């Protein structure tokens, strides 16, 4: 398509850079600017999300301490539950979905496949600004009458479906939440379409599917998941909004009595919401982590100076995870009252998703094995990703079995599991990507010592927070409890909670190293060359940062796979994908 038309020819007419601040930086159609906009939105969101989580941790162990940002100084039960809800929602949607896909995917997918832009640049701009609206809407939930919703990021009905009669925040706050989520779904659908069309139609000559970097595989499969999953949640969100405001009963059964008042609903099913939510919600886990897997593979290979071990197996494993990811949503509902036979089927399907995950892990180890490992900051975060993904993934084998889930469901074990595997691991993927691509995006290098300091604190901190949480869970510690005073056995777990809170506070504070590094390097980092890491993929053949049309009119052709490191008989220990075979500098025999 268009990229091929541009290839090698004059591209100036079609790709003239926009003039004026607003067209260039605000309502830009340049995928690179939009990628940075998504990244900055996610950065804002993650800072808010971290503050919310630290406030929660404080409240859990020192409920009587006066807190900043909390009206009245001391946190009430509904404020705690509002934080639970908002932390989850902001982190899952506006950080873990936004940064890896909207941010880095947007910026690097077109460049890595040799395209001048996304297939639909205006649609791309629209998806960002709708995401921005969604973000404003979710933040507004804090300030509406009644405050933010308390029904958790899963928004189970009837708690979320009946209005403020079920609790504070369930009036306006819940409405804002549903509006925000629905807008976010719409934006993500548009983005997913764009990613898929771009990957299929705009690859450079020679860029076959099995020559795409694994990052592109990650974004591509994530986009397919997004296309199939976000539509379902969007439908669910609209139905829930109708239940609340138009008197329908999609999710509300007959005979509901709240506070001795009979509710005027009939015919709906609370489990229907759970099915719709998790049909989105489980693929969402992979939407968050697949780009991170791509980044981990990409970075491990680059700094081990070795091809990705089993490249095809890695690409196929991404596809397998994406495919299986749509058939396991019921494992969130083992104790929901769903048929126990379905529970067993979902269990076996869930266990089987461990297989492609294990394939990826073994291949990452294989990539490192026999390598020549350079410990740059992005590499440290990629190795950390593997470690955390293994630790967090294995606990999934317990939760995937309904019998064992009878003990662990809704405990801190679950919190530990998903934070390690889709939260912290995904964030390590984001950090690896940031340190790796910062030179390309902003034309300057980040500071290595600060980066390493950031890594050590975050790596140790992540384990200190989330490993002990498993132990709380095994002992029966229940999540989403604003206070532990009513249940005798929960009080015995308070010392571990104190340790976790202290670890969380230190880890959160250590993120200041990243912020200092990021903003200082933006202004004063040493200038980056075109290819500071001696890497192989197409983003490294163009300027840092790339020009408006990405390749200044010289669109590349591709002659080989993405990870040609340390190829025998070649002088350099890397070969760019775009280097013509006759141009490869060979060692004289």
């Amino acid at each position, binding site marked *: 398509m268009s990229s091929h038309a541009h290839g090698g020819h004059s591209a100036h007419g079609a790709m003239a850079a926009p003039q004026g601040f607003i067209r260039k930086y605000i309502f830009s159609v340049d995928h690179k600017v939009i990628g940075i906009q998504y990244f900055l939105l996610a950065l804002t969101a993650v800072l808010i999300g971290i503050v919310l989580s630290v406030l929660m941790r404080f409240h859990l162990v020192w409920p009587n301490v006066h807190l900043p940002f909390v009206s009245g100084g001391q946190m009430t039960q509904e404020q705690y539950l509002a934080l639970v809800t908002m932390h989850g929602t902001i982190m899952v949607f506006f950080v873990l979905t936004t940064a890896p896909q909207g941010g880095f995917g947007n910026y690097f997918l077109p460049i890595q496949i040799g395209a001048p832009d996304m297939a639909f640049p205006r649609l791309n701009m629209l998806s960002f600004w709708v995401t921005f609206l969604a973000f404003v809407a979710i933040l507004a939930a804090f300030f509406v009458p009644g405050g933010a919703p308390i029904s958790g990021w899963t928004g189970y009905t009837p708690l979320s479906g009946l209005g403020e009669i079920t609790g504070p925040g369930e009036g306006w706050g819940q409405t804002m939440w549903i509006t925000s989520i629905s807008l976010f779904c719409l934006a993500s659908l548009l983005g997913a379409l764009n990613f898929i069309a771009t990957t299929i139609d705009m690859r450079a000559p020679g860029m076959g599917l099995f020559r795409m970097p694994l990052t592109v595989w990650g974004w591509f499969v994530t986009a397919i998941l997004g296309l199939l999953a976000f539509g379902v949640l969007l439908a669910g969100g609209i139905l829930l909004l109708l239940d609340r405001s138009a008197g329908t009963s999609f999710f509300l059964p007959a005979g509901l009595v709240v506070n001795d008042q009979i509710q005027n609903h009939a015919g709906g099913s609370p489990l229907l919401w759970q099915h719709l939510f998790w049909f989105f919600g489980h693929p969402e886990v992979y939407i968050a982590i697949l780009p991170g897997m791509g980044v981990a593979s990409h970075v491990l290979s680059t700094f081990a100076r070795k091809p990705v071990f089993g490249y095809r197996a890695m690409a196929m494993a991404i596809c397998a995870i994406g495919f299986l990811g749509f058939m396991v949503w019921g494992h969130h509902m083992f104790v929901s009252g769903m048929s126990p036979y379905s529970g067993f089927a979902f269990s076996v399907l869930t266990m089987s998703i461990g297989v492609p995950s294990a394939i990826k892990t073994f291949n990452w180890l294989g990539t490192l094995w026999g390598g020549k490992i350079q410990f*740059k900051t992005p590499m440290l975060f990629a190795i950390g990703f593997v470690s955390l993904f293994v630790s967090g993934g294995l606990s999934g084998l317990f939760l995937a079995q309904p019998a064992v889930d009878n003990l662990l469901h809704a405990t801190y074990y679950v919190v530990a599991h998903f934070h390690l595997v889709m939260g912290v691991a995904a964030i390590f993927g984001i950090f690896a990507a940031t340190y790796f691509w910062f030179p390309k995006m902003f034309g300057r290098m980040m500071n290595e010592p600060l980066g390493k300091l950031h890594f050590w604190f975050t790596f140790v901190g992540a384990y200190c927070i989330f490993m002990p949480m498993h132990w709380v869970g095994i002992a029966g510690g229940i999540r989403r409890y604003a206070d532990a005073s009513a249940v005798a056995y929960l009080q015995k777990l308070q010392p571990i909670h104190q340790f976790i809170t202290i670890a969380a506070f230190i880890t959160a504070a250590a993120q200041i190293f990243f912020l200092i590094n990021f903003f200082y390097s933006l202004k004063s980092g040493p200038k980056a060359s075109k290819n500071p890491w001696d890497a192989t993929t197409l983003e490294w053949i163009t300027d840092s940062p790339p020009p408006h049309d990405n390749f200044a009119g010289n669109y590349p052709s591709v002659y080989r796979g993405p990870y040609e490191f340390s190829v025998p008989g070649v002088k350099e*220990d890397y070969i760019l994908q775009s280097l013509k075979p006759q141009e490869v500098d060979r060692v004289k025999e």
Partner: protein
Amino acid sequence: MRNTNQMVIRSRKRESGSAATAGLLALLQVIMVCVTVYVFAANLYSAPDAITSVGRAVDEQYKLTLYVTATVFILSQLGLAYAVYRFRDHGQKAHFSRGNNTMEFVWTTATIVLFLGLGILGRRAWAEVRFTPPAADAIHVEVTENQFVFNFRYPGPDGIFGKLDPKQISASTGNPLGIDSHDPAGKDDIVVPTLTVPVNHQVELMIGSQDVIHNFFVRELRLQQDAVPGLIVPIHFTPEKIGQYEIVCTQLCGLGHSRMHSYLNVVSDADYDAFLKSGGQ
């Protein structure tokens, strides 16, 4: 991996994989593995002993899963630590390899057998509670939850639960379930805020909710069940040990979620008879 030394090229880069960084990272991995393995092996944190045979079956399955995951965990995390240290850049040449199909086949097959086998074995403990119907002589108790209390209803001497009429629900006047005052079968129904059952008898709970989704969880039973409005979900168990156990709600149900709490009292036959005779006192 084949030995491809003679085919390897020398990197022009100066070495940048400092031994200190590699060593620290490997050391942290090893410490993390040791602490984790120690806590699980020494069983420092665990649920109290199960009081049902099904609960013990759950524990067996938990242990089996622990052995499998621990093996994978230790091997891969220590493997990672080893690789990070051993293959740090100290001027050596990288071994060129694109992968190994035999190894891919071996670890794919091994994980399929291990993980799917585990999942299929796990069926036993699940099936005992959820697939098999309760015994004919099981004691029936209705569990009705609402914001933020548990109510347990026994049918009383006539053995029949009275009809319910939502219009008559009134927690303040002592009829939280709305037992129909016109139904004679409801007159002797016992409604209490704690669950009392005799030891070594099978009990079937019929769990429902009046308003939002709640849950019924007793650690010692290894049993959780959501209480979903519009559904009555049966679960059954046979407690084998006299004692008092805490019942909690694990499904976020609103403002008072963490205060929603009750007790399961497992008592002797004589005490149970006394409990029924006294109308739940």
